[in-house]
């Protein structure tokens, strides 16, 4: 566990939770990323502007951070074939399942939603199993 970063993880997590709390308390909307994008793919009147504003912030804050501090280190192991397959699965699956890590995993768990608790358990399980197979069985 030499790569464990509990403090930055908790601080960053608190910021994400604050974002969810603010959007619900002030605007009555769920800060679920897949749902926010999904609402732009099938737009409804009066529900477009805030979604675009949220995405501008979501993309803008890290961009400004990267300009000032330099881009944070990141590493992607997957090749392009895997990236495309994974992207398709994430896009389709989050819409079919009604949420992703934010909508189900943060907002839904915070609301103690039975659907979100189920969804979060299942996507964590499927993801951990996939990583296990990819890293320890097929790459062994």
């Amino acid at each position, binding site marked *: 566990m030499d790569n464990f970063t509990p403090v930055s993880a908790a601080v960053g997590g608190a910021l*994400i939770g604050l974002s969810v709390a603010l959007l619900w308390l002030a605007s009555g909307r769920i800060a679920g990323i897949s749902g926010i994008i999904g609402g732009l793919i099938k737009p409804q009147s009066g529900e477009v502007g805030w979604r675009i504003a949220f995405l501008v912030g979501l993309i803008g804050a890290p961009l400004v951070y990267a300009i000032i501090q330099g881009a944070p280190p990141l590493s992607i192991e997957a090749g392009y074939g895997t990236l495309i397959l994974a992207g398709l699965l994430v896009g389709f699956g989050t819409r079919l399942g009604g949420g992703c890590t934010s909508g189900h995993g943060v907002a839904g768990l915070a609301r103690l939603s039975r659907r979100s608790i189920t969804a979060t358990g299942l*996507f964590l399980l499927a993801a951990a199993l996939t990583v296990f197979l990819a890293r320890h069985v097929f790459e062994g």
Partner: protein
Amino acid sequence: MNRTLIALVSGLLFGLGLVVSQMVNPEKVLNFLDVSGNWDPSLAFVMGAAVLAAALGFTLAKRRQAPLYAPSFSGPTKTKVDARLVVGSLIFGTGWGLVGYCPGPVLASFLWAGAPAVVFLVAMLVGMAAFSITDKYLPRRTKSA
């Protein structure tokens, strides 16, 4: 304060949180999911702190008839676990485990994270559009658990 400004601030906080917590790094996400490898529990701390902070907001909101700056709360209305939720979450989890990207982190970083992030993002948007197109053909009411 209007709804656009609220959403902008909310998005800024969310994006900053993803960078500070290093969740924009797929490797860090995979190291959390890899429980039998060199396990990195950080993602659990991100989710734990996020859920606590969000729960505070939802608790405060329960005392209110309406949000501060909007006419009504507009949250999820479904309460039952259905096949769509189960199958969708399993599909999403498989894709998440293949690369380490979920929708928030890839959006937050695609402008500076290089070509792989852009390729994943485009495929993800295609996947979402594919759902919107096929939605009406997919079963809606199956057994509820």
